[in-house]
């Protein structure tokens, strides 16, 4: 259309000039909005840049092999050791405890809400779960250290004051709402006709839920579990408060231990000079953490693509 090229047209009124102005400002606004949307990409680039560049300095001083295989983590001592496995073990154990609570509980709640509960129960239960998900993690940390640990010590008298067990249990409760609400969404997206088919064959509700709805919604369930794992691995304050902060290579949840995240907090609380090796360790730890969550994210996307059912 020739209107795209104003010079071809005789200017008969101010109207066209006004239109041209309008087009310019429209373009300008679109550009501004695009910049706002690009901030998220810049954030990612910033994260990668900061973690990789600081870790690069770190790995000039410490070999990657030592980093992955050393069994001690004493970066601030004279005899410095940088074995990240020590911190990873704490993260793995606490996440394992948390998921052992969160996955069964979250799935049961999701099945109950989507297949059994009537709309009245759902309208009460969903806000409760949402509130539970909104509680600040520092408050959960307080709860783990000063309420749950003393309660657990009644049953397990040898439990120390700081332990991965009580931190992990509370972390599990914290993750339940994420898993429950995502899984429920996935199960409610399963078409009614599948359930009706099962009911018509004489299935009970539970049988239908377990043998028809859960397999049909499996990709959504898997995605919610992966999100739960990411939350558990990245959780910081509950562990910093309730699991103690001394590095400890252990697979026993009854012991206190530092995790990747609580180590970062511990260093940040002190006064480390910018550019020192201690300062660089937290970026190497952060990079490890990001890579772990990235692996789970990719796994989640793969699972979702592989098990996606189309109706």
């Amino acid at each position: 259309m020739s209107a795209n090229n104003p010079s071809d047209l005789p200017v008969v009124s101010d109207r066209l000039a006004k239109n041209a102005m309008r087009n310019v400002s429209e373009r300008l606004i679109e550009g501004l909005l695009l910049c706002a949307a690009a901030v998220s990409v810049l954030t990612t680039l910033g994260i990668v840049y900061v973690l990789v560049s600081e870790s690069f300095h770190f790995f000039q001083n410490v070999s990657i092999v030592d980093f992955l295989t050393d069994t001690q983590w004493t970066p601030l001592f004279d005899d410095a050791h940088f074995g990240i496995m020590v911190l990873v073990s704490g993260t793995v154990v606490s996440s394992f405890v948390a998921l052992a609570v969160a996955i069964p509980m979250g799935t049961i709640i999701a099945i109950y809400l989507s297949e059994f509960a009537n709309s009245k129960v759902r309208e009460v239960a969903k806000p409760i779960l949402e509130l539970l998900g909104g509680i600040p993690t520092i408050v959960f940390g307080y709860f783990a250290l000063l309420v749950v640990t003393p309660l657990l010590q009644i049953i397990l008298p040898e439990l120390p004051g700081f332990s991965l067990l009580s931190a992990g249990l509370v972390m599990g409760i914290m993750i339940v709402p994420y898993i429950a609400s995502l899984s429920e969404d996935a199960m409610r997206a399963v078409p009614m006709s599948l359930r009706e088919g099962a009911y018509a064959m004489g299935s009970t509700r539970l049988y239908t839920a377990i043998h028809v709805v859960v397999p049909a919604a499996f990709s959504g369930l898997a995605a919610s579990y992966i999100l739960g794992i990411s939350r558990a691995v990245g959780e910081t304050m509950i562990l910093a408060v309730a699991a103690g902060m001394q590095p400890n290579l252990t697979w026993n949840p009854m012991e206190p231990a530092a995790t990747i995240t609580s180590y970062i907090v511990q260093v940040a609380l002190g006064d480390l000079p910018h550019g020192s090796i201690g300062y660089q360790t937290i970026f190497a730890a952060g990079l490890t953490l990001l890579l772990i969550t990235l692996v789970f994210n990719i796994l989640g996307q793969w699972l979702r693509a592989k098990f996606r059912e189309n109706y």
Partner: protein
Amino acid sequence: MQPLTTEQIRAVIARGKLRDTIFKALGIFCLAIALLVIVALIADMAIKGSERFTLDFFLNFASRRAAQAGILSAWVGSLLVMLVTALAAVPLGVAAGLYLEEYAKRNWLTHIIEVNISNLAAVPSIVYGLLALGIFVYQFGFGQSILSAGLTLALLILPIIIVSTREAIRAIPAMIREGSMAVGATRWQTCRYHIIPYAMPGILTGVIIGLARAIGETAPIITIGALTFIAFLPPAPFTGEPPAGLFDWVFAPFTVMPIQIFNWTSRPDPAFEINAAAAGFVLMVMVLSMNAVAIYLRYKMRKNIKW
């Protein structure tokens, strides 16, 4: 196979029903645990902290003596950090959501932005703290200030605001846009006078949920190195000598509620435990009331809007 007798069929049905009932009970039990944790948390902090709920607690600075310590600098700091966070995250998030829903063409750039936003939502919050430590604190030289903390939390809640903005915009039917454009409005005029106003309740819900998340975040703020003992207030916002004085408050050192709680929780002296409980209760009231407002807004919205 022998056909089942009536009694046998009845037994099968009874067994199935029993299993259903057991599972129902299990579901209610799990929900009850969730509710119990919320109630136990609030009750524990309210009871332990009850003796500290005085005006002095809100008007005193942190102190070495537990009985005189208060949360003045913490709640003021939290409010100021939230102000910076909201000022940064709301325009950016709404603009990004608007762009993705109303302007973006389906091309590789849009795809990258979308994948990015969903991945950012899964990045642990402490990683944002490391980003802020490297970029805001040292590269930009903002130091350990309200500005650094506010911007960090803004980046953290940006995905929440973008996603809720997009959902709110997507719920507006196409006829609204067509009607507006049919009478000669440009795309931006359509957004400005129709899309944004109609999406407002949904956007607001997302903003409140995002800010409720931000006000309770501890890890990223500790990572940027916020002080834990602050016995002074930053200058009051927008009151100093213009132009420089207007913004001197954003460069002030600060502390926030969650850091104050962490500080008191990690002290061995049980007297500070009472303070931690009281401050935790105050924080919970803040967060839960924000969430309750958001849930109410969403509930009301769902009932009222009929296109």
